[in-house]
């Protein structure tokens, strides 16, 4: 596992020559490595589609509605996940609101019932942050437990 300093140092060369195409790619790779190390989550794929739901026939033309469909997949150590969620963005005169209207979390079944528990809770609450944070802590706890048992073997 690279430390924050190591990641930054190795990237300094890439930063200096960021105009170079390969340098840019290297810079992006370093940023991804930094974020996956920090969050414990490795996002491999992501895509989004938008659909304009603004109803122009209605009198209230100042309200703009956009539905975003997001697809995200990745892994946290040995556990892989796939998320599909929808975000409804409503822009009226005063403010812009963004709400997750649907969240589907697809994971391979494991022997850990706690995992399925917090996954379904995250789905019910449409709480992405809770899902990612719980997954990270759960995996860390599993690793810690494994190491502890190894120690006693």
């Amino acid at each position: 596992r690279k430390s924050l300093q190591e990641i930054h140092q190795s990237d300094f060369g890439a930063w200096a020559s960021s105009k170079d195409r390969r340098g840019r790619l290297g810079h992006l790779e370093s940023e991804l490595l930094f974020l996956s190390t920090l969050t414990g989550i490795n996002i491999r794929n992501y895509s989004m589609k938008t659909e304009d739901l603004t109803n122009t026939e209605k009198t209230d033309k100042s309200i703009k509605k956009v539905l975003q469909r997001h697809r995200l997949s990745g892994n946290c150590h040995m556990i892989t996940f796939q998320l599909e969620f929808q975000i409804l963005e409503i822009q009226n005169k005063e403010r812009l609101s963004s709400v997750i209207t649907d969240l589907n979390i697809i994971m391979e079944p494991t022997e850990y019932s706690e995992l399925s528990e917090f996954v379904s809770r995250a789905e019910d609450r449409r709480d992405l942050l809770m899902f990612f944070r719980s997954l990270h802590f759960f995996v860390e706890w599993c690793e810690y437990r494994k190491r502890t048992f190894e120690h006693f073997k």
Partner: protein
Amino acid sequence: CEIAFLLSSGVLAHLERLEMQTKRSCKNLEDLQRETVESALGTKIHQLRGLRDRLRAEVKHRQARVKASTASVEPDQTLEVDEQEAVEGKQENMKAILQAYRFTGLSGKLTSRGVCVCISTAFEGNLLDSYFVDLIIQKPLRIHHHSIPVFIPLEELSAKYLQTDIQHFLFCLCEYLNAYAGRKYQADQLQSDFAGFLAGPLRRNSLCNLLSFTYKVEADGQSFPFCARLLYKDLTTTLPTDVTITYQGTDALSTLWEEQRASHENLFLTKPLHQVFTSFTRKGEKLDMSLVS
């Protein structure tokens, strides 16, 4: 006496002469060996140089042939374009993934001096404000600038964790900010969507962990004003730790209303603020006791 004998009989001198002869012949042998090896190597070098020159000529010849035969098609450029497209595609994918990290609560980018971390907040599926912390990677690690509100204990958290465990520092900050954002959201919702229930302004502090308001509960044509005081001692939660509901009137509360008051206290402790008022709206005047569980 033995040495004296050896000296006088010239044995030592003879040994000396023999030694010198051996050295000379050894030297000669070494020279001979060296010369043999050198000349062999010299021949080898000559042969390899010849081979190299022939190969170089061959390569030049072939390059010229390839250039000549494919001059009209210009495959070099096509190859470059394909490669460029592949790299750009990969770049776009990576940029998209970097954006997607905001859904984990922490995202950011590398800067020339360190890293700028962006903390996203959300409450019950509502995506709320983002905050940033710009870190300079030096020994010691320090915060260059940030957009964290002053009432969030940033100094306390950085003093405890920044130097030893950046991940823990950022996770804690994320927790505090998300809890604050959640409390603020509930208070804002109460003010905007349930203003009809309030008999007076909603009093709140900037940290949104101390709220007090008076709300009206109606039953049997009567209107009872209840005073609510919500205290959120734990700054990492979005539900209050202490709820006090008092009755504003001068008369003593009937048993039924005392039960209502007590059940309201429990409701505010277990459900987000705006959801409590949603349930008031739905159930109309009567409060469903099953909500208490």
